């Protein structure tokens, strides 16, 4: 696609549909729902990282006036959450007689008001028998370690086997061909996404059906899980998740809080509400797993990367944190396969990922699942290979990068027989535009050559991530045109901040050739909307947008067919625009869509689906991130002066929103790079920084302005040429800053977050000639 078509609505900076309500206080989130007669619910949590429960004493809590219910493992159904617990090695119950991390739920109380609730929770006494723990992933992967699970500690791995691997070519031959071999160790902490609305749920039981309002990204997965764990049929459960105060992947965990309030509502017949504190959100949400990567890579003097060998050990926590239970499958696979798709011209790769069960809080998806766990290591490696042979880091990347029309190897790794061609790869454009914006020629030719204690440098990183295109994911939409002229798109997608409802209205308006004001949407209500997997894998505009287009096309075809019958005209003579059926030859309006809907008996309905595995092509997103920093080598402080992020968005359906998603993603990447990360007590396993300020998310005083560049080269995998782009801006930031620090100082800071103490330690280490690497 070279010449972008002209559209009336798609590509315009349309004001977000929910923006006014968000700025007046009228936008209602789960936490804002208060129902008459509602009980408040609170969870009692484990102080132990691993223990068996000997007894729970609840009598004193039950005796307190105003307490309506107390639930422990003895009071909950003996049923598992999740569609396929055996296949995914998961098997969570609402409560059980064993705890596996500090903060795990062991009981719940329901009471008339918050003070009684607090007192009742304090009166629950639990007798624990502490058990041996695993707190270090590398130690936990060894066969002699305490085994936490019947399947062992390495998630998905058979004895001695990794959780995921990517082997191609022959690394031994590759290393033999190398002129230079670089060995380094790169480390990243576990990171919480910190959505600002802590999770919560409200439940109402009418004797037959359960309605749950929940702050989740995946209402349909939650409905299915609730039905399974509560022993209800799926059509007995309605989940409404219209608006969420942030998600970022953190709100697609099983979220048993919905099941807890559901049980309370079913037992008491009264509505029940739970709303986590920040501490609970941190502990019982989930984190991106932290990793240590042992990397060994070889390169020839003329710039050919001959071999890459990586061993990665990650902290899974005990429970995987995704509704589909697929954390243990998806994260290791995407780390070593997806990320190496970016440099698919590297012939010899041997990468093993060990995702190890520990007694820490759950690990799961956080913005760019799989990529964010691995790309820091690979993008640092690319920099270090380039500097080892004196090559330009951008040129070294482009020489090995994926190209338009290459086959998507990820599909074979996922068990599909065939690959598919990759749609347009605008990675070279991302790098060229990023270089131009940052002033790439200003970088130090010799890293660390600047004089004085404050040293300036420029660095970059590439990135690849799924852009909505994933074979297992599905989105459906239904467009209804009624006899009063109303046009409504039903879709299962919560608004977690990406304002997808706006983008969907733009797509429907464009396709129907109607003003946007004529179109309404209803979203994320499992009774009212068709299935959607939700805002995951950058699929909103991509998957749900495609389904919305197809639903509108189907409604149009149905309307034309009905109008042809009603008006006694051939279908080919009719067209739709502005809510009317037109006779094309004379440009004459013959009937309104409302009249056609009335002729049809009340409504015209069109349905559309996106099914990843059935699509003919595969879409990847790409980005180039560039940073300019000043490093104070006396204090270890890094001042990030500029951040440029050029993203291959295909086509921006609403540039205001796309820019905002890029800026926000970069800000979260900045947090990961500079200060965020979970700290666990090495003796007890307890989380040490569960409160807000200690999570170190950036403030207005920390964050530089982000320069977002939209690369719009189209994408034949989407009806309007879009690529999903909300996740990828995060992942290149940390390596770009790290590489800029290297350019400034000549020092490798191989651990994020790059706090001043780590920077100073790296400076001291390199002064003594020590190397962070180890043979994998």
């Amino acid at each position, binding site marked *: 696609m070279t010449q972008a078509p002209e559209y009336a609505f798609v590509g315009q900076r349309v004001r*977000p549909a929910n923006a*006014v309500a968000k*700025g007046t206080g009228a936008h*209602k989130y789960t936490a804002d729902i208060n129902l008459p007669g509602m009980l408040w619910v609170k969870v009692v949590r484990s102080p132990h990282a691993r223990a068996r429960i000997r007894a729970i004493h609840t009598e004193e809590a039950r005796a307190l006036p105003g307490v309506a219910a107390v639930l422990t493992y003895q009071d909950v159904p003996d049923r598992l959450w999740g569609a396929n617990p055996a296949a995914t090695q998961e098997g969570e119950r609402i409560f059980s007689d064993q705890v596996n991390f500090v903060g795990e739920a062991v009981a719940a109380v329901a009471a008339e008001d918050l003070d009684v609730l607090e007192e009742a929770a304090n009166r629950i006494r639990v007798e624990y028998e502490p058990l041996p723990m695993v707190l270090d992933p590398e130690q936990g992967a060894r066969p002699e370690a305490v085994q936490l699970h019947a399947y062992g500690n390495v998630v998905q791995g058979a004895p001695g086997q990794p959780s995921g691997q990517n082997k191609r070519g022959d690394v031994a031959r590759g290393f033999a061909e190398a002129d230079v071999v670089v060995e380094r160790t790169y480390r990243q902490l576990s990171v919480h996404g910190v959505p*600002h609305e802590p999770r919560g749920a409200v439940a109402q039981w009418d004797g037959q059906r359960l309605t749950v309002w929940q702050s989740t990204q995946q209402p349909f997965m939650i409905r299915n899980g609730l039905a399974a764990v509560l022993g209800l049929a799926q059509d007995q459960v309605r989940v409404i998740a219209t608006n969420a*105060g942030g998600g970022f992947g953190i709100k697609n965990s099983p979220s048993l809080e919905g099941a807890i309030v559901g049980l309370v509502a079913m037992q008491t017949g009264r509505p029940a509400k739970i709303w986590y504190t920040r501490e609970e959100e941190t502990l019982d949400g989930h984190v991106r797993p932290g990793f240590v990567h042992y990397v060994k890579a070889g390169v020839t003097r003329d710039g050919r990367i001959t071999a890459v060998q990586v061993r990665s050990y990650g902290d899974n926590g005990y429970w995987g944190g995704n509704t589909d239970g697929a954390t243990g499958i998806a994260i290791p696979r995407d780390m070593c396969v997806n990320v190496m798709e970016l440099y698919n011209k590297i012939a010899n790769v041997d990468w093993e990922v060990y995702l190890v069960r520990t007694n820490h809080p759950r690990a799961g998806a956080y913005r760019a699942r799989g990529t964010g766990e691995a790309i820091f290591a690979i993008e640092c490696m690319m920099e270090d290979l380039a500097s080892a042979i004196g090559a330009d880091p951008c040129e070294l990347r482009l020489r090995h990068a994926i190209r338009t029309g290459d086959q998507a190897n990820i599909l074979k790794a996922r068990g599909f027989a065939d690959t598919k061609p990759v749609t347009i790869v605008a990675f070279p454009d991302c790098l060229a535009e990023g270089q131009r914006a940052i002033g790439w020629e200003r970088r130090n030719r010799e890293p660390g050559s600047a004089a004085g204690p404050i040293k300036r440098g420029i660095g970059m990183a590439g990135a690849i991530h799924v852009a909505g295109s994933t074979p297992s994911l599905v989105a459906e939409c239904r467009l209804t045109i009624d006899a009063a002229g109303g046009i409504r798109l039903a879709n299962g997608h919560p608004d977690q901040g990406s304002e997808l409802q706006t983008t969907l209205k733009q797509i429907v308006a464009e396709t129907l050739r109607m003003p946007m004001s004529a179109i309404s949407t209803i979203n994320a209500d499992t009774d009212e909307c068709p299935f959607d997997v939700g805002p995951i894998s950058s699929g909103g505009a991509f998957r749900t947008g495609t389904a919305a287009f197809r639903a509108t096309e189907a409604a149009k075809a149905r309307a034309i067919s009905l109008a042809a019958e009603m008006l006694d005209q051939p279908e080919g003579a009719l067209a739709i625009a502005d809510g009317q059926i037109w006779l094309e030859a004379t440009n004459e309006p013959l009937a309104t869509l409302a009249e056609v809907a009335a002729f049809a008996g009340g409504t015209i309905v069109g349905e559309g689906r996106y099914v990843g595995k059935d699509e003919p092509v595969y879409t990847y997103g790409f980005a180039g991130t560039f940073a300019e920093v000043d490093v104070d080598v006396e204090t270890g402080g890094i001042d990030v002066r500029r951040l440029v992020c050029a993203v291959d968005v295909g086509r921006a359906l609403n540039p205001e929103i796309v820019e905002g998603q890029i*800026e926000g993603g970069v800000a979260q990447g900045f947090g990961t790079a500079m200060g965020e990360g979970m700290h666990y007590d090495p003796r007890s396993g307890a989380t040490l920084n569960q409160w807000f300020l200690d999570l170190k998310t950036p*403030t*207005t005083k920390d964050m530089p302005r982000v320069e977002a560049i939209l690369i719009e080269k189209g994408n034949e995998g989407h009806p309007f040429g879009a690529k999903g782009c909300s996740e990828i801006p995060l992942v290149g930031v940390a390596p770009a800053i790290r590489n800029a620090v290297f350019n400034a100082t000549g020092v490798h800071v191989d651990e994020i977050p790059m706090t001043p103490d780590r920077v100073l330690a790296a400076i001291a280490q390199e002064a003594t000639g020590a190397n962070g690497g180890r043979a994998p």
Partner: protein
Amino acid sequence: MARLRLSINDAIYEADARDNWTLNDVLRNVLDLTGTKRSCDYGGCGACTVLMDGLPIYSCVTLATNAEGHRIQTIEGVQQQGELRPIQRAFADRYAAQCGWCTPAMIMASTALLAENTNPSEDEIRDALSGVLCRCTGYGKIILAVEEAAREMRAAAEKGGRP
């Protein structure tokens, strides 16, 4: 329980509250004024920001009884005669609200700034909003929105109209 009389958005509200309840508890759980959010419960994030006598405060660490006798403004009182104020319009147009959870607090803090200074520099805006954290936007579009609202207010003042 004690009966409190609170001045909120230029109206008097009566609310039954315990001594240990915060202003945030009373706004959200008693008066159903849920536009004011909470995110951390200890003054660490700013999502609960309201104005007391024109100055931004954290409602989650302010006891409700201590709000008696003061003029409280919340997000529900920012619109005038149903019209959006320039700051609300600018937040909407610039996509300065993504998930929207911090937006009421950001608008309250911005309102306090713009009441004092309709020509703030970027640094002054960053200072004024530094007590409210946003996870979605990276702050760029929020700062643009405050600048845009300030411009609109100055233009209206030059014409002699009410901002």
